[in-house]
């Protein structure tokens, strides 16, 4: 699939697509209301960890698919980092070929059930939809439809395992089993490579497992996708830290011809304000890992986690929303988001903010913590907040938060979760002295091939970007897979 645009254009000319377009006038299509996701009741779901979104029915999916105009220039596809043929999979739904829709998604997306749930569609494909751009109407619910097709396939018992090429015997190592690693592994397996994914933790999935809570992305969904990859021949090794358990040189000696490093950004950032070391102040990474991966809140698990009654979460991204909603589910009486800009500037998905508001999460926008205080045992019991206002725009066009001189007040808290970003995991870089790094600890790569300064090592996702979305990381993984394929073809004699 060298030229995605050409491929998409050709697909539009297929007879079945032409017939579908003729079957309903554009005006009729645009008059259909956008489908609404079925959700758990906010006051029930904020006490359980079941998935908030319940999916859409077949009928709803079919109605929604009729809204899609199958545009000549499908601008929605421009916004997709993995290049999904969006009109094709939607028209498959309209044609009631749901398994075909799932297959269309899997042509370029290894994890459609995941992306349908966690992608910021309103900032990518749906932002570029004709409805948004030209009609000033709600866009096609591309994310909902993606989820529907992937879930339908999974529940049908007829999971399509992508075809893999004849094995070429070339061993490739993937470091990290997060979205970047899984995307690279999937594409390389399709090309016939002997792929092994090395994961430092005891579970496969990286941030999809430890970072995103079950109420947004059930682990079962990730496990099914991983199982599919196993069926494609991908091998997984857990509790294996590349750079510690074995070095790159060890793995080269074992016959690995190339590496993809997708080891993520596991180092949490803090604000470095006074009192931030008190007990009861977690990074969002630690808090969510304890709850999501180590099941700290479940009976029968030994991992401890502090349960707060008055919880403050610092930040305005998806991790902040995940943390604050988790705290509510663990019994907090008051769970507050503290964010230094206004709600419009929050980087979190609009749906997550909306869901949090429905679940009685308080939002203290235009506030920033400046100091924490503790009781005599060193447990945080109070935080000092600085009121903010918005100043001139920064380079992103968003107005910069500026402190309001003299406007400070204290708030009682017993648990604080800091979600202000992460830094790259240093283990791989520190084990390779010739690896070219940025001064931010990210790996320098060629943008097209994702090749690093060490020719057999490719990288993508958070370890390259410092902070990425799931879909961007997957896009990196796919580009790296193509880069590795080219590298192997040029440098290694295929056995």
């Amino acid at each position: 699939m060298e030229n995605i645009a050409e491929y998409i254009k050709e697909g539009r000319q297929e007879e079945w697509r032409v017939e579908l377009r003729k079957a309903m006038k554009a005006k009729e299509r645009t008059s259909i209301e956008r489908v609404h996701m079925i959700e758990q009741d906010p006051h029930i779901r904020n006490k359980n960890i079941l998935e908030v979104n319940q999916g859409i029915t077949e009928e709803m999916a079919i109605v929604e698919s009729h809204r899609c105009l199958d545009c000549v220039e499908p601008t929605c596809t421009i916004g997709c980092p993995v290049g999904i043929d969006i009109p094709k999979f939607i028209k498959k739904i309209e044609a009631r070929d749901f398994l075909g829709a799932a297959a269309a998604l899997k042509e370029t997306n290894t994890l459609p059930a995941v992306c349908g749930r966690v992608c910021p569609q309103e900032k990518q494909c749906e932002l570029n939809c004709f409805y948004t751009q030209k009609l000033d109407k709600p866009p096609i619910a591309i994310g909902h439809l993606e989820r529907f097709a992937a879930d339908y396939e999974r529940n049908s018992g007829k999971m399509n395992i992508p075809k893999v090429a004849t094995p070429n015997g070339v061993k490739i190592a993937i470091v990290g089993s997060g979205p970047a690693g899984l995307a690279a592994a999937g594409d390389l397996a399709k090309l016939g490579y002997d792929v092994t994914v090395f994961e430092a933790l005891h579970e496969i999935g990286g941030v999809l497992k430890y970072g995103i809570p079950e109420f947004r992305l059930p682990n079962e969904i990730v496990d099914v996708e991983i199982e599919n990859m196993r069926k494609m021949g991908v091998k997984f090794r857990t509790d294996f830290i590349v750079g510690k358990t074995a070095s790159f040189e060890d793995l080269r000696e074992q016959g690995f011809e190339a590496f993809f490093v997708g080891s993520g950004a596991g180092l949490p950032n803090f604000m470095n304000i006074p009192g931030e070391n008190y007990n009861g102040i977690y990074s969002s990474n630690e808090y969510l890992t304890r709850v999501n991966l180590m099941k700290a809140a479940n009976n029968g698990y030994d991992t401890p986690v502090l349960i707060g009654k008055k919880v403050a979460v610092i930040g305005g991204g998806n991790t902040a929303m995940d943390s604050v909603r988790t705290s509510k589910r663990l019994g907090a009486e008051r769970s507050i988001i503290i964010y230094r800009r206004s709600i419009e500037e929050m980087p979190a998905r609009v749906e997550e903010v909306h869901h949090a508001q429905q679940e009685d999460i308080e939002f203290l926008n235009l506030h920033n913590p400046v100091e924490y205080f503790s009781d005599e045992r060193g447990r945080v019991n109070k935080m000092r907040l600085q009121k903010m206002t918005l100043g001139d725009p920064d380079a992103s066009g968003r107005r910069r938060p500026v402190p309001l001189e003299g406007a400070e007040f204290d708030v009682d808290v017993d648990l604080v979760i800091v979600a202000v970003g992460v830094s790259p995991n240093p283990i791989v870089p520190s084990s390779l002295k010739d690896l070219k790094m940025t001064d931010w600890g990210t790996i320098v790569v060629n943008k097209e091939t994702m090749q690093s300064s060490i020719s057999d090592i490719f990288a993508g996702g958070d370890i390259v970007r410092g902070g990425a979305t799931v879909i961007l990381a997957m896009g990196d993984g796919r580009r790296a897979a193509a880069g590795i394929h080219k590298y192997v073809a040029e440098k290694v004699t295929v056995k």
Partner: protein
Amino acid sequence: MADLSTKYLGLTLRNPIIAGSSGMTNSLKEIVELEKSGVGAVVLKSIFEEQILLEADYRIRQAQTDEMTYADFSETLDYIDLHIKEKELSGYLNLIHSAKNNVDIPIIASINAVTTHEWTSFARTIEEAGADALELNIFVMPFSLEKECADNEKAYYEILKKVKSQVKIPVSVKISPFFSNLGKVIKNLEKFGADGVVLFNRFSNPDIDIENLKVTHADILSHSSDVANTLRWIAIMAKRVKMSLGASTGVHDGATVIKQLLAGADIVQVVSALYEYGPSYVLEMTKFLNDWMERKGFNYVDQFRGKLSQQTSENPDVYERMQFMKYFGDIK
């Protein structure tokens, strides 16, 4: 050989010539060289809030052009200014650590503060890193058409008070001359806990290129003629405040060092001359000071410090006179 040692902010310096905050005091290598050249102390390059904001904007633009740095919607990018600041500050603390481990002269850290917020808490970390003193380089641009003059001055006092509440090391304040009543402001700084004041900070100034019709930067370096205003105010304030007085701007030779000491300064800060002639120029300046003291029969600095301050000189009104009098007007 005369005794050139002096007291500044309660610290004993081997001589009164301090390398002022600049690009030349931003690395261990240069600090070591400055010590070898004989400076009495070093003020490290200031950390500027403005610089951090510019760096943040650069990172955001990189992310927007897909230069493989951050995703537009990541929390890391959302707080990029915070992370840049953290990185800068961490580098700064390392510089203090390594300077303290490698040189014997006092190391004075410097913060360019414009607000009372997180920068003031950084003062405590600077102290923990081992800095001998802290210079607060404060400048609140006085162009607000809404604020009263007193509000601007209050900002200086608030920053100082907040920093003083955080640290035990001595704190000096480097200020500009742009106040409606500079003398009272300096007195107030002492009242609110300043251990010293440095007159004056030097700004980047605008200029206009009339050929290319462009706004440009004026000379970055000072000139020896820039010394007069500092000299005036050191002389006026000497013996009127108990805190240390530092003279900055326009100190280009040994003679000017002596003038400032005579006016009442405890130390002088040198930057432009070091850029122009290199760190070894300090040796020439100290030699000039030593030779002059020997020639005049002074054994130590306190024997002549402040001898020509406004309070002690025979012609004190020269320091106050701003307007040219009639007989100056006759000078062709």
